[in-house]
């Protein structure tokens, strides 16, 4: 399974470093956070220095129906020709969707990307809604526009759904039955699951959400559709086991998990604390927690090169390198060509995490709320639910 950098504000040298160390396979750029000309320069440099790297631009069109909101921060998005505020009613018209897609493809193709990600809106509540109809229409139109134009760049049609939409099983199943039978077959999907807030862990670490996220990957892959999972962070290997070809994560919490709230920045606040992604815990610890624990529960340390950065604490810019390194390793350990083997690997990883957390508890060391083991029940439940509904025995 491939791992991509989810690029946002504060790019610096991170992507180049990740590529040079072989930690990531490419990058997904965000128009909001880079000037058009800067983005083109950066993509050109990446393509020149790392010709095997995959490079995409997420058009972030899902902000278009919120673009009139007074609190929104669109950054550099309005520099792009295809972007403006739209009302849902406008986007219900297939012709308008087609114009947006054509303009997006025209501009993005000139940026030197290795694949196209098409625009789409966010399905913010239900898969049986007006928004879902618009989203399906965008998928259909994107495939048609792409097929009509030919060209060498593979298409990944965006599908952006809120986590609530993954909680209604009947609607979800009807939706995936539909999108696997679109008139014009899709070759790839760029899939984002949105929570109410990027740091709302319970939004993402929820049995039904994770199980259906995995089922989406499976149903699409069974039908020959390659799935890139945006903002999938530590969930990536589970999605890889279910058939996804790639996951992505970045350096801020809002690049690890997606929320439309990313475009409505809250004022103030302090910089997030540096964290360490522990493969054994399937979760991050604060760097001081890692230091305190490693003597008592040595298995929480990955034993990888970037562990050395945590003596005592890495530069903020280097934190993501440790994330990518740990995730790359987790992907290669858990994801298998054989789905049953992969599922078994994931179950073992969750069990191993439980044991590690039990050792931490035995050592009597308290953890920060987001370092705790709340995610494990959801992961375990999701694996079982996924296996049952996919009839994997």
């Amino acid at each position, binding site marked *: 399974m491939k791992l991509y950098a989810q690029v946002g504000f504060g790019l610096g040298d991170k992507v180049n470093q990740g590529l040079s160390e072989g930690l990531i396979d490419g990058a997904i750029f965000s128009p909001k956070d880079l000037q058009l000309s800067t983005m083109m320069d950066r993509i050109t440099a990446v393509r020149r220095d790392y010709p095997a790297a995959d490079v995409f631009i997420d058009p972030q069109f899902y902000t278009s129906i919120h673009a009139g909101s007074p609190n929104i921060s669109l950054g550099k998005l309005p520099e792009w020709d295809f972007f403006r505020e739209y009302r849902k009613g406008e986007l219900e018209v297939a012709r308008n969707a087609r114009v947006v897609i054509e303009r997006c493809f025209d501009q993005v193709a000139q940026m030197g990307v290795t694949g196209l990600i098409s625009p789409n809106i966010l399905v913010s509540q239900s898969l049986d809604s007006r928004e879902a109809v618009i989203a399906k229409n965008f998928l259909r139109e994107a495939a048609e526009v792409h097929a009509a134009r030919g060209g060498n760049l593979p298409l990944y049609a965006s599908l952006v759904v809120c986590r609530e939409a993954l909680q209604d099983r009947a609607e979800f*199943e*009807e939706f*995936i*039955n539909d*999108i*696997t*039978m679109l008139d014009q*077959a899709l070759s790839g999907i760029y899939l984002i699951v949105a929570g109410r807030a990027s740091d709302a862990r319970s939004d993402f670490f929820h049995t039904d959400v994770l199980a259906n996220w995995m*089922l989406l990957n*499976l*149903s699409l892959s*069974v*039908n*020959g559709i390659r799935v890139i999972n945006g903002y999938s962070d530590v969930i990536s290997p589970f999605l890889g086991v279910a058939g996804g070809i790639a996951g992505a994560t970045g350096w801020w919490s809002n690049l690890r998990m997606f929320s439309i709230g990313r475009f409505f920045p809250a004022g103030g606040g302090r910089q997030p604390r540096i964290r360490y992604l522990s493969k054994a815990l399937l979760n991050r610890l604060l760097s001081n927690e890692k230091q305190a624990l490693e003597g008592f529960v040595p298995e929480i340390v990955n034993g990888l090169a970037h562990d050395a950065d945590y003596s005592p604490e890495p530069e903020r810019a280097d934190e993501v390198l440790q994330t990518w390194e740990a995730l790359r390793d987790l992907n290669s350990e858990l994801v298998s060509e054989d789905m049953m083997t992969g599922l078994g690997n994931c179950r073992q990883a969750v069990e191993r995490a439980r044991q590690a957390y039990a050792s931490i508890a035995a050592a009597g060391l308290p953890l920060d709320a987001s370092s705790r083991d709340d995610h494990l029940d959801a992961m375990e439940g999701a694996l079982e639910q996924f296996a049952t*509904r*996919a*009839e994997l*025995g």
Partner: protein
Amino acid sequence: MRDKPDIGAVGCVIPEASNLVEIGSGGYKVVYRATVAGEEQAVKLVRIPTDGDGEIKEENLGRLRREIALLSECESPFLVKLASIEPREVVIGSDLFVVYSEERVPGETIRERMRRKYEPSIGDLAEAGLCLLRATAELAGKGVVHRDIKPDNVMITGVPERPAVLLDLGIAFQTGGTPLTRDSGQLPGTLHYIAPEMLDPKFRQNLDHRADLYTIGLTLYEYASGVNPFRDPNEPGYTTLYRIKTKTPAPLVTHRPDLSIELCRLIDQLLKKLPALRPSSISSLIARMEGLK
């Protein structure tokens, strides 16, 4: 069919057919082998329920005409063809029937093969699978779902140009158009061969060719293993639908470890309850099946 007409009476209303021998019957239909214009044909006699109501009569007649028209349009050699008796209404006693004929496809149905414990090779299975997929491709291209693919409706011919032929479009369903069967609330199909999505009361809104891919998978599974995974002699018949909805068949390889794992997995994949988890592209399936021959 209940209250089947006397075969002598049938012969009287179809004078061009001789040597009539009943070879099958369903809810509203009797099929005879007969000699017509010097060749053997399958003569079909279909009762048209009228319930004393002209509108119902016209509706049922219309459906049958569409089925026959559909057959006449199909070019696939893997679908049964119409023969020389053009459809016409006949009255036997007080009942209205339509009579027409189809080619008599010589051979042995998969069911007949199973009865004599024939164990198909990987080549047999791939060949039958390819013919069924190609027949389904033509139907799907016309927006039609067969809905009754089962071992009884697949004739293995031994003829290289058409090794297997799909019979009986009697309950075919037009997606997104005029239904070829009545929206009666009754489940069309044969109990052990109903696709899980058809158990959804709203299935007519969403049905597509993946229901046929499921029954192709089931037919091949049963052909290979000799077992219908949803038939349970120790349980009452009415629990069959529950099993169809909930029971995952044992992987085919557990019945036939001698077959290739790829073929077994492909057939297992077609049997998934959720249509989205079945590969939907018939052309891709044909390519995969070709690779397994």
